[in-house]
């Protein structure tokens, strides 16, 4: 006997896969639907000695012919004649789920079992569903399920078995529309009656789909009944559309939805107030343009407090280890030049950067927590809200949030903006968003010079960068007139507790890249800087290339209280911001010891100078890769203009902070 075929249909994420697995266990086969790259899963189960082939249809929200997924699901239901259709629905979101149920029933499919899944969640949220009433109302069997826990699965198998063997009679409900539309449906049904089409498809469904100008159904009618008949029907539809003044497509979907809505109160009851869940309550504060911003600063402050409190001791220890290693290695190397290169250049430069690994790891860990909980998405929306007030295109939000990681993909993400001018403005503002590379410099300076309030210093630099970004957005929007923005809507994920394993894995993946970067770009940079600092004569003699280079800019740096060393660091920082640390480390010739470096630097930089350096490093220029990305996404002129603007702003703010600080006697 041929196996009976069971199709699983439903919205995405309702637990279809879970139901599928619960039904079939390990006996599954994954392939593709013919002709398309949509995954097709099949499996087998046995009940009462009878075998059933379960086919998992793609998850969809409707059965219009708009996407491949929908078409695949719809064609299977229409043409393959499954013995049983299991419509899996999410009991916590019945409106949109039953909308699809209506689409299925409207097709004239009668052998449907409704699998009411996630009953446990519904229970928890105070949603009470009267299953018996729902059954009567829909005219099909309803099986409550908790597929995750396997509860109700046997019942479902039983119902499938009964239906496949013709032991269940159904009287499926179909959605009703306004009288005007119903009249039209009857009319079209009449026009189609007696033709070969209606023996294969439900005439009502054909009529509704024609009213919605469904391409596939129009083709079908054209093929079976010819152009004349189709034209006749379509002219009629044109008339009713003109009467409504809106697209029929949407009107019919709208009325179908209202139809579902009108059923809801007859079988559902809420025992707790449904509308105000935790997500909504939190979002009222966290996405608020004013409270949200303060909350953001608070969260960042807490994050830095944690990162510094846990990370700095480890970092100090690591730095000391590098230093000891350098000290141990030095006597073993005879050649002075090689010793210098290895101990001061490589171990010194790369080691200084690498000692930040614990901080970077912790930071990525906290960021991953914030991401997984769903908070970073709120930050994006919050920033978007604020940015919009300052004239930035709303959709730049994607680009901006990527910028906290790295400005390069952030600039590239501006491609999602259709408007050329929007792209330019977003690219312009983006490099001000402090990327993760700048973070190590900020934490290096904060850790070295601000015992006790490192977190506050770090947050203030972040806040300043964001304020500068806002100001720049406001400024540039006066010069670049943007086009009308096409509207959009942002859906936020629900707050969720993170899974610790994926968190650790993810933070590790990201911080691993930090080590890779230290081993490549920073390594090469360190060798280069070491060379410039020791040739043709050692640093301190005033003759090394580095000093000569630095002295060119020294007068300018003097305006903000910094010296030639800062000039050299910032120059190398253009290649990669981490180089600011390694350069300092090499210039002071303190092999590998960030601890030692702090000591050496503490004598040379006052906290005020260190703060200015931190701010300037954050703002002064995008790194070379970001400049390249801006050029690639726009043109040389724009890249040059952005760079020049950033240097100007960074200098101005540096000078300002220095003089305000001096005035305040810091």
């Amino acid at each position, binding site marked *: 006997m041929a196996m009976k075929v069971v199709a699983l249909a439903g919205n995405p994420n309702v637990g279809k896969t879970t139901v599928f697995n619960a039904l079939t266990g390990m006996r599954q086969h994954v392939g593709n639907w013919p002709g398309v790259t949509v995954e097709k899963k099949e499996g087998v189960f046995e009940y009462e000695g009878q075998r059933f082939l379960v086919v998992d249809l793609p998850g969809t929200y409707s059965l219009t012919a708009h996407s491949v997924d929908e078409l695949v699901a719809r064609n299977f239901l229409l043409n393959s004649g499954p013995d049983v259709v299991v419509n899996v629905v999410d009991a916590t979101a019945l409106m949109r789920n039953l909308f699809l149920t209506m689409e299925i029933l409207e097709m004239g499919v009668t052998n449907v079992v409704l699998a009411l899944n996630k009953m446990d969640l519904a229970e928890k949220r105070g949603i009470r569903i009267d299953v018996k009433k729902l059954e009567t109302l829909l005219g099909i069997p309803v099986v409550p399920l908790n597929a995750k826990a396997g509860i109700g699965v046997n019942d479902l198998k039983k119902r499938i078995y009964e239906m496949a063997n013709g032991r269940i009679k159904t009287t499926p409900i179909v959605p009703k529309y306004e009288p005007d539309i119903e009249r039209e449906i009857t009319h079209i049904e009449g026009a189609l009656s007696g033709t070969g089409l209606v023996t294969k498809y439900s005439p009502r469904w054909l009529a509704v789909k024609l009213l919605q100008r469904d391409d596939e159904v129009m083709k079908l009618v054209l093929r079976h009944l010819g152009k004349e008949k189709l034209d006749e029907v379509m002219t009629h539809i044109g008339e009713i559309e003109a009467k409504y003044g809106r697209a029929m497509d949407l009107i019919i979907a709208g009325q179908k939805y209202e139809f579902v809505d009108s059923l809801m109160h007859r079988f559902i009851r809420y025992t707790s107030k449904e509308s105000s869940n935790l997500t909504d309550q939190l979002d009222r504060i966290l996405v608020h343009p004013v409270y949200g911003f303060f909350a953001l600063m608070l969260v960042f402050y807490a994050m830095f407090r944690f990162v510094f409190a846990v990370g700095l001791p480890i970092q100090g220890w690591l730095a000391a280890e590098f230093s000891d290693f350098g000290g141990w290695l030095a006597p073993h190397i005879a050649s002075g030049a090689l010793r210098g290169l290895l101990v001061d250049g490589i171990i010194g430069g790369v080691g200084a950067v690498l000692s930040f690994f614990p901080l970077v790891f912790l930071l*990525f860990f906290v960021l991953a927590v914030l991401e997984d909980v769903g908070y970073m998405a709120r930050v994006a929306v919050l920033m978007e809200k604020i940015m919009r007030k300052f004239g930035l295109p709303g959709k730049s939000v994607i680009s901006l949030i990527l910028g906290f990681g790295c400005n390069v993909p952030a600039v590239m993400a501006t491609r999602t903006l259709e408007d050329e001018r929007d792209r330019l403005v977003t690219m312009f503002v983006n490099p001000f968003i402090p990327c993760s590379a700048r973070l190590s410099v900020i934490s290096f300076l904060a850790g070295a010079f601000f015992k006790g309030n490192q977190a506050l210093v770090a947050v203030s630099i972040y806040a300043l960068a964001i304020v500068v970004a806002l100001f720049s957005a406001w400024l540039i929007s006066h010069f670049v007139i943007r086009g009308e923005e096409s509207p959009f809507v942002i859906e936020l994920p629900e707050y969720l507790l993170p899974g610790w394993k994926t968190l650790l894995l993810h933070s590790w993946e990201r911080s691993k890249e930090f080590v890779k970067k230290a081993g490549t770009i920073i390594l090469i940079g360190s060798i280069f800087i070491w060379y410039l600092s020791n040739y043709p004569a050692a640093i301190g003699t005033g003759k090394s290339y580095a000093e000569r280079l630095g002295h060119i800019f020294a007068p300018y740096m003097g305006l903000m209280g910094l010296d030639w060393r800062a000039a050299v660091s910032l120059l190398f920082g253009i290649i990669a911001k981490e180089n600011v640390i390694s350069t300092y480390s090499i210039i002071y010739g303190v092999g590998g010891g960030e601890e030692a470096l702090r000591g050496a630097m503490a004598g040379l930089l006052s906290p005020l100078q260190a703060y200015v350096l931190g701010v300037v490093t954050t703002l002064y220029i995008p790194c070379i890769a970001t400049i390249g990305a801006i050029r690639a996404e726009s043109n040389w002129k724009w890249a040059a203009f952005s760079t020049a603007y950033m240097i100007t702003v960074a200098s101005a703010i540096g000078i300002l902070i220095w003089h305000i600080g001096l005035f305040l006697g810091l």
Partner: protein
Amino acid sequence: MGKIERVLSLIREGERNPAEIAGKLGMSREEVEGIIKILESMGYVERIEKGSGACETCPLRSICPGSCVRKTATVYRVTKKSFSLKQDHI
């Protein structure tokens, strides 16, 4: 006009936050989000792909530490199909 059409209208008028749309129409945020999904499947709004494409083509990808943020907000933009509708009532 039904809820589906009203949600689309509000989005077209510049409302971006499902929670605020929900407030205006007296329904829950989840329901508004469900309607957006239906609108998407009918082709009236479409999802904007995040920076993933940008991340994949990024020259710094092999050494990039921090980007390609996971679990972000989903942004849907209104499609041309919506603009072919008249917007004369609400």
